[in-house]
Each structure stands twice: as C-alpha cells, then as structure tokens.
C-alpha cells in the first residue's frame, strides 16, 4: 500500500491518510478481504503517531470501508469499493464547487465553465486513444 504524506499541508495528516485509503478502495487497488498493515507498521513506515493511524482506521471502520477482526488485524470491508466511491464522490463535489467558485470569481459564466470541463474531458480521452495506438 503506497501512501504519501505531505508535511506542512493545510490538509491534516489524518485526513490525508484516510482519503488515500478511500481512494485505493474506490479504485479497486485495495480489494475486499485485503489485509492492511498493522497500526504499528504503518506508523513506522510513514513516521506518523500511532494514535493518528489508529484513529484513521477507526474512522474508516465507522465509514464502512474497513473492518477490524479481533486478533487478526484490519481488513478491507466487503462493500469498500462502493463506499469508497461514495466518500470520494463527496470530495469530488467539494473540489468542483471550489473550482466553480474560482471560475465565477474570474467572471466566467456557467456555460463557459461547462465548456472548460468538456475540453478537459476531451483532452483526457484523446490522450487515452493516443496511448492505445502506441501500445
């Protein structure tokens, strides 16, 4: 499991870890039944307080992404994929809202914002096609 902590970020470290684990569940890189590193192991690897890691695991258990099996460790829950997607969707909506706010502040109208979004999607699609042709 690759996680990356950005120090000095305005996003608290516990949120950074929780978001990345949710992302891994949503994208399917963490699959239901996969075992997560122990609190100690992850704390050591990331050089982050053990209590912080424990709180993140507990929060994700509460959100339904992870489950703790007594004496065995922490595992990805059965419906983690869809739950992770839902968690992520909320974040995405929040980010889009900020993006829209910036656009409006710059004097762009709703239509121009939609146009920008379409443009970005088209660029991604043409990149994907180009990659397919190469391979």
């Amino acid at each position, binding site marked *: 499991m690759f996680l990356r*902590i950005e*120090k*000095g*970020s*305005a*996003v*608290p*470290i*516990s949120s950074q870890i929780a978001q990345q684990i949710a992302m891994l569940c949503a994208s399917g890189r963490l699959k239901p039944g996969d075992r997560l590193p122990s609190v*100690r192991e992850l*704390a*050591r690897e*990331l*050089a*982050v*307080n*053990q*209590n*912080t890691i424990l*709180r993140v695991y507990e929060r994700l258990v509460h959100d339904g992404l992870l489950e703790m099996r007594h004496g065995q460790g922490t595992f990805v829950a059965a419906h983690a994929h869809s739950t992770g997607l839902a968690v992520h969707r909320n974040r995405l909506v929040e980010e889009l809202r900020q993006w829209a706010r910036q656009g409006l502040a710059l004097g762009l109208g709703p239509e121009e914002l939609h146009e920008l979004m379409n443009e970005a999607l088209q660029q991604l699609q043409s990149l994907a096609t180009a990659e397919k042709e190469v391979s």
Partner: protein
Amino acid sequence: MGVPAIELQSVDKSFRKNRVLRGLTLQVETGRTFAFLGRNGAGKTTAIRMLLGLLNRDDGSIRVLGLDPQIDPIGVRSRVGYLAEDQTMYGWMRCEEILRFMAPFYPTWDHQLALQYARDFDVPLATKIKHLSKGQNVRLGLVLALAHRPELVILDDPALGLDPIMRKQFNRDLITHLQGEGRTLFYSSHLLYEVEPVADEVAILDQGRIVRQSETDALRRDVKQIVLHREAAAVLGETASVLHRRDEGQESAVVVEEAPGVIDGLRREGVEHRVVELNLDEIFEAYVTGNNQDQEPKTATTLRVAGDA
C-alpha cells in the same frame, strides 16, 4: 489519570532584568508525546533546564514525576532521560566507551539495552565521538538518554541541524521506541511540520508563557482563517477570539479560535465569508506574531492565554 508526568504552575524566571518566563503553566499527562513549541528565545531551553533541576526558578512550582527538581534533582535525573540542545560529549571517547562510562551514573542502566539501541539507531560503536556526523551524534545522545529505561524522556530541540532524511528516521525512532513502549516524551522544537505527524499534544510558548495548549488535531480544527468584508470583520472582532487580522482593500483576513462556532454564527446571520484551512506553521504564526516587536504593529490582535481554551 494519576500524577501528571510534568506539571508547571505559574513559573517565573528572570536573568537579571530579562524576564524569560512569566507565569508559565503547563501539564503533561503520562504516556503522551508532547511537543513544546516556540521561537528562538521564547524560553524553551530555560524551562527544560528547570525540569531537570539545572536551573532554579524565581517563583511558582514544578513537579516532574511528582518530584520537585529543585529539591531532589538527582531523584528526577535518575528517572528522566535527557538530551540537551547541542549536547557535547567527550570527543576523544569511542561510542562504545561513553556507553560504559555513563553506566555507573544510573542504578537502572541496562547495558544490553544500550547496545541494542546503538544497533537500532545505527550508531557506530567503534568510532570516536569527534568523528560522528550530526545525525549520529543526536542518535548517540538518544541511546544515552534511553538506556536507563526512563519513564519520561525530555529532548531539547533534537531535530536541530538534522537533514530531512535524518529527521524522518529520527521521528521513526521516537514513534517506535518511545510511543511504542508507552513512555512519556516531552520535546521542544521550532519545526512545526516535523512535530505535527508525531505529537499527541502541542503547547505554544511565546514570551515566557503558554499561549495555547491543545491536541494537535483539535488545534487544526479549532483555528482557521476567515476572509470577509472589512465591516463584518470588525463586528466579528467584538465577539470572537481573533488571533490575527490583516486588512486589504474592502476585505479582511481574520484568524480565529473556536472556528466551527464562529463559522456557524456567520452562516446563521447570512454573512458572506470564505474559510481558509491553515497549516500548523500558519497557526503558530498567528499565535506568536503581533507579539513580535521586529514587525510592524498589527491591528486588533488579542491573545488569549491557554487554560481558558
């Protein structure tokens, strides 16, 4: 909760006319990792030296593991692991020699454990101390501070002068060997982004007193910047605890404590505003600027002392 590991109550200290500590009050519970933050010259080292009984206070009370360090300095030092800022050790000794040299000073010294830590921390035992790098020097100091199995470990700016990779490794050592073993750790630092991942709790020292003591996470949730109309900011200043305010044109950027309540209030009253999340460095800055004489005077800065927070 039992007896706190460290307790300072209204501690004052002056060096001639210079008042270094003014009514310093602080409590560290057993088992916590506690970071003591402040700018250079805020009084961190003075306070730490008092905890060890290396300096006497002018007024107030201090208890370390229930003992008064001024009355029983040896009792305190035998139960506390201490790493001084820029600790100097005999350069001509080999690391292995200084371990044997230190052992008789502590009744509870565990030499096997000392050798184990030296291996864990990659301290080259056969090398002379004067040939150690800065990072190795700090880690040797940590071995010496831990080998008598202290209940409480006090480190004075241990990350000073370490490069980023060494700092991460050092943080890892603290997490594995101190938090992992349930010991109380009290350490000072001025590098907030280094402290944030590690500390359970932080206290900000400014001009000789604590301006805020809080759980690290809670501090993040509690202190935020709000950008709003200048007039609305003036109204806000009358009810909210404002740490710092900057005006620009018709807008004001205000850093407030108890932000969730303040934001709820603004929302209820329909006041247009924008919330900016701050990192720990910015929060620290909000607490300690406005007190800084080198800077231009800031408007509408009020500071609240910890305890009512």
